[in-house]
């Protein structure tokens, strides 16, 4: 028997039952398991694992203390299995298909966008006009056969054009190449589910166990960040998801906390990431580099623009080393104007470099 067929029968048996079924009962009801006990057990474990990976809510009922001899029972509660109808229109479904085709996910999420679209394509209860509507007669209709593998649904061609116009001519790259690549693994997915449902999470970060109310996930400069309330520190914190050292455990009920209206989206600029005493630093920047400094510091940091296009920036600095590295990146096109102590720091750093000549 084909394994997929066995899995369908197993799932039917698990959905069909009110009372949890034992492994042996499932073996009798589901054809296709081996007569050999060891083989059966191994295959049953594998099937269970696959159903769990697919997100099927497999409930395991362990025997109570009164009957320790009894075996574990299994079932799948319908309510937890079934996807509610989000009420998407065909146009909305097409827009989602286009968005998904423009972004390619790396790592574990690679096939997830496709299977998500399968589910949404099936989720609408009310048939759209002209699409899968019940037909009174069985008379053969001359259906133009669509090209295989074409993503947007029938009747979606015009919707496609509209969607593109609406979204400001988002181009679909030629030859199926995506517009953007975004990494996403199960850690990010678990955090996102917790953010969406407002459930606290627990993980290890920076050598400490943390309990966090997760507020927002942001993708910035190629990295995922989590903003949230850190209960150990008693303050808002930003975490780099790739530095979370353990699995993320979700706990508590949905809606366990409320999120503030304004949550920092991404990391602050590097010169703000530190515990140095806060100091307002003024920079002079050549015209050619002004746009780059402005894009990192924000246009509000521009204190003055000169006739030659150069500009003065005022930055609030709590990490002096990061500031020095930032300014040195512009070579002779940027200069620390003040305060004197920060300017002197830069000068003595450069002098040490000059003086280092000759040393191996």
């Amino acid at each position, binding site marked *: 028997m084909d394994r997929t067929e066995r899995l369908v029968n197993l799932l039917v048996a698990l959905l069909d039952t009110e009372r949890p079924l034992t492994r042996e009962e499932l073996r009798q009801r589901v054809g296709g398991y081996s007569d050999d006990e060891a083989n059966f057990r191994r295959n049953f474990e594998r099937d269970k694992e696959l159903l769990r990976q697919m997100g099927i809510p497999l409930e395991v009922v362990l025997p109570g203390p009164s009957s320790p001899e009894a075996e574990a029972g299994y079932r799948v509660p319908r309510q937890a299995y079934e996807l509610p109808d989000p009420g998407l229109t065909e146009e909305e479904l097409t827009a989602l298909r286009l968005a998904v085709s423009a972004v390619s996910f790396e790592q574990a*999420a690679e096939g997830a966008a496709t299977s998500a679209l399968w589910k949404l394509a099936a989720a609408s209860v009310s048939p759209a006009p002209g699409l899968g509507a019940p037909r009174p007669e069985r008379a053969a209709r001359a259906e133009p056969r669509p090209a295989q*593998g074409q993503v947007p649904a029938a009747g979606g061609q015009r919707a496609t054009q509209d969607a593109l116009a609406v979204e400001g001519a988002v181009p679909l790259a030629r030859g199926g190449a995506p517009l953007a690549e975004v990494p996403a693994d199960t850690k990010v997915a678990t955090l996102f589910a917790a953010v969406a449902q407002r459930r606290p999470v627990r993980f290890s970060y920076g050598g400490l166990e943390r309990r966090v109310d997760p507020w927002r996930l942001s993708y910035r400069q190629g990295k995922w960040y989590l903003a949230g309330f850190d209960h150990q520190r008693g303050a808002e914190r930003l975490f780099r998801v790739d530095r979370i050292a353990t699995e993320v455990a979700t706990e508590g009920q949905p809606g366990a906390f409320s999120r503030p209206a304004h949550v920092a989206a991404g990391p602050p600029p590097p010169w703000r990431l530190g515990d140095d005493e806060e100091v307002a630093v003024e920079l002079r920047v050549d015209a050619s580099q002004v746009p780059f400094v402005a894009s990192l510091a924000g246009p509000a940091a521009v204190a003055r623009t000169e006739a030659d296009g150069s500009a003065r920036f005022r930055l609030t600095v709590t990490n002096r080393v990061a500031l020095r590295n930032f300014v040195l990146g512009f070579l002779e096109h940027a200069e620390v104007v003040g305060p004197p102590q920060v300017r002197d720091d830069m000068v003595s750093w450069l002098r040490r470099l000059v003086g280092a000549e000759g040393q191996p």
Partner: protein
Amino acid sequence: MTRPSSGRRLERLLAIVPWVVAHDGPPIAEVCQRFGISERELVADLNLLFMCGVYPYTPDSLIEVDIEDGRVWIRFADWFRRPLRLTPLEALALVAAARAVLGLGQAQAAEGEGAGEPRASVGAGRQGARAPQAAGALASALAKLELLVGPSAEEGLDVELGEASPQVLATLQRAVAQRRKVGLEYYSFGRDETTTRVVQPWRVFSSEGQWYLQAWCEKAGGERLFRLDRALSATLLDEAFEPPSGVLPPRTYSARPEDPVVVLDLAPAASWVVERYPHEGVEDRGGGVLRVRLRASSKAWLERLLLRAGPDAKVVSGAEGVAQEAARRLLAVYGL
């Protein structure tokens, strides 16, 4: 053709069945198109269902599948009246894709209004005014997904595809679509100079949170990859060009064999150089000192590295006097 795994096949089947059940004999072609599946695959999957049902598998306890006149009916499959709920990864993929594309549309709409900041992070979600044009089908779809994913799904996620001027991004995308050349004002980080050049834009894409243009550079006479956060402006030209038929995915960085080799000894305080820069080998010299071998792709690149590492990096070979010369130039800026 590779055979899909049992799990993948089952996932697809569990979506197709509820839809067919709800639609009283939809045309097979329509099912195929809706689920992006070939007719052969669909029929093979449906054939599996013929023998499925509940114990004792008498005919009245089996799922019934009829295929007739190019249409398909599925009956007695009440277990599968609804598709399976979304997994966390599926929810993430949907919402992240929608947020990324919506942010892109918003940035371009803002550019169209001629207002706002000269440069913006593109692909961000809620920042700035929500452009009315973007509140289309995708935005309403995203709002409806909260029912499936959770009440904070939309506000709890944002995806920024990279820093770039909206004007530059919009112009380049138009130029790619219309196959027209572009005048690109570009700051070369490696050479530390701003130049204007004519390019034939092939593809605009975002990778690792950074926008890139893959193009033929007429000035250099070769294929080039431009980081769009360093593009100052882009002007659409009238002249058309023919893009090559198969554009290969570009490599973002690779050392050229002609790049000079630089060997440095790094004190512990400069060990970040090993993590941040591509290198060709590290050797532990004891006492926390690492000896690293790098390819210097340009003078400005090497100067930045040495200026930042400062006294914590000692040149072993290949860069004698570079840091000193650069430091003197910078001290001159300070009037010294």
